[in-house]
């Protein structure tokens, strides 16, 4: 039903691979099996040629960077490189934990993530339910087009538009002045930073996130609704006992993924929004890594933060998956 079905579909494929001929016919000596394998490889040589650019790409831009994480254990300097930089063991990690800013950015990140999980995540579910209930195909399609659009616009565009609506020189401010008030600027007010971040995410992505939920709703067996109606279930009871259970696995799945990402909050978005704010308002883990590493050249420190974040993210996914399975759900893997 989702990406993860794609994933599990492939896991399934894995078990279906044809066993090598050597295994099917055990009486044959291993050598013959090997020759067969090399023949099969030779026969598919052009497929390997087609695969080659992609494999090089993934090794170069996904797996080589993994090795780059060793800089977290070095006093890394780009001029000395990975081999020349001195090894300093866990010193970077000690510095990370003794830096007061570390705790501030962790707090900010978790606060924003929490706001998003509580407000932005359910917004997609509610919107999907309303779209599903909307009578009239034309209006529904119009709403979907309208709601999906901001997903395709980059954050630079989105934030520029918000600046124009909620900034000091924006629509809201002019409206308030017109009504006899004073200029308002929600975009540079620290108290509004986190709510604005969350509202922007809701405005940009809620529509798009309904796609998964709508697919789940359409997959629900219609006879369940009829049966429920025959049993005298009203709208709310049908919603509660038929629709929501039908969406449960996708909701849990997306929630697991979201929890695994609890330490990342829209990098580009915050990166663009944070200028003009102080660290204790607007710096989050990702932007912290960027400023310490790429801007200030504390490579080892930044790499250590990034590595910790990745490891904690993986552990969180693992825990969330375990919890989901405990509650009888399918989980991610």
């Amino acid at each position: 039903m989702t990406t993860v079905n794609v994933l599990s579909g492939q896991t399934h494929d894995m078990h279906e691979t044809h066993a090598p001929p050597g295994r099917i016919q055990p009486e044959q000596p291993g050598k013959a099996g090997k020759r067969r394998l090399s023949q099969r490889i030779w026969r598919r040589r052009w497929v390997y040629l087609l695969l080659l650019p992609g494999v090089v790409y993934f090794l170069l831009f996904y797996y080589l960077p993994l090795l780059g994480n060793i800089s977290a254990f070095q006093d890394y300097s780009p001029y000395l490189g990975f081999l020349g930089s001195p090894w300093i063991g866990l010193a970077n990690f000690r510095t990370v934990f003794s830096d007061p800013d570390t705790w501030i950015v962790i707090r900010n990140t978790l606060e924003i993530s929490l706001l998003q999980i509580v407000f932005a995540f359910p917004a997609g579910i509610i919107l999907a339910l309303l779209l599903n209930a909307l009578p009239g195909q034309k209006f529904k399609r119009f709403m979907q087009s309208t709601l999906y659009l901001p997903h395709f616009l980059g954050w630079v565009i989105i934030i520029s538009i918000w600046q124009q609506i909620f900034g000091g020189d924006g629509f809201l401010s002019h409206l308030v002045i017109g009504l006899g008030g004073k200029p308002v600027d929600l975009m540079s007010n620290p108290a509004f930073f986190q709510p604005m971040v969350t509202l922007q995410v809701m405005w940009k992505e809620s529509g798009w996130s309904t796609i998964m939920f709508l697919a789940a709703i359409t997959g629900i067996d219609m006879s369940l609704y009829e049966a429920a109606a025959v049993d005298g279930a009203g709208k709310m009871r049908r919603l509660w006992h038929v629709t929501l259970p039908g969406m449960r696995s996708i909701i849990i799945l997306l929630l697991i993924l979201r929890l695994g990402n609890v330490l990342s909050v829209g990098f580009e978005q915050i990166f663009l929004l944070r200028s003009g704010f102080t660290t204790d308002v607007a710096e989050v883990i990702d932007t912290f890594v960027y400023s310490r590493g790429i801007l200030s050249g504390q490579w080892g420190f930044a790499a250590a933060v990034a590595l910790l974040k990745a490891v904690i993210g993986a552990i969180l996914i693992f825990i969330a998956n375990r919890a989901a399975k405990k509650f009888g759900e399918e989980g991610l893997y």
Partner: protein
Amino acid sequence: MVSWMERSSFIERWTLRVSMGLLAVVMIFPFVYVLAVSFSSPQDVSNSLVVLPVHPSLAAYNWVLSQTNALQGIEVSTFLVIVGTAINMLMTVTMAYGLSRSDVPGSKIILWLVLLTLLIAPTIITKYLVVRQLHLIDSIWSLIFPGAIAPFNLIVLRQFFMGIPRELIESAELDGASEFRILWNIILPLSKASLAVIALFYAVAQWNNFFDAVLFINSPQLEPIALVLRDIVLQGNVSQNNIVSGEYMPPSLTVQMAVVVITTIPILVVYPFLQKYFTKGVLTGSIKG
């Protein structure tokens, strides 16, 4: 249509419609406002609320195109959209095809190599260090190669290729067709809609390319339009090289919004096509696997 809301009353139906209509206004109004401001005269904008331009003028657009490096940004982004998307498609199609052939020894290992990247993504620091090591910093190729394949698109396309009947491929093989012929003459013509969706996704991503440019690009003449937009609207400055000597004027609101409009329009233009393929269910269908 049976759903949880079946047999709703007149009031319920209209409450739903009206609230959806309001939501549509919330989604659309900001664009209308931005458009109106971009066509207004600066005085009107700073003095009062405009919803429709009182003195419509193209001055802001003239200024943007002549006095800022927006035109250069458009050129860079157009290059990225054309060349970058071509490379995206070439890399994605060949690899997706290779991975869709199930009888190739070792292809499962490669598939896992790809799937793992959905969980373990490189951090910006390590990504930056690799790009630096490859001497791509401040090169246009730093905006193309590090993102040459989106793992998600690759998997969606492979899934689609897997759905093409084996017999077609096998009979072509019997006729002595090479892998390239099979890919070009059988697979690709059958996958037009999927290829179109993926190409559009890549093209939109290339046009929106922003953060890679922040990381890897230092020269103003290599800035894509998104970066130019950031400089003008969010940082209130205009690239030095194009400013008329002597007088520096911070970009006015109308100018800022003109850049927003210029950056948004290409996406609005391709959006109906994206939409068309969605309604056909090509993408969701393949996601559903």
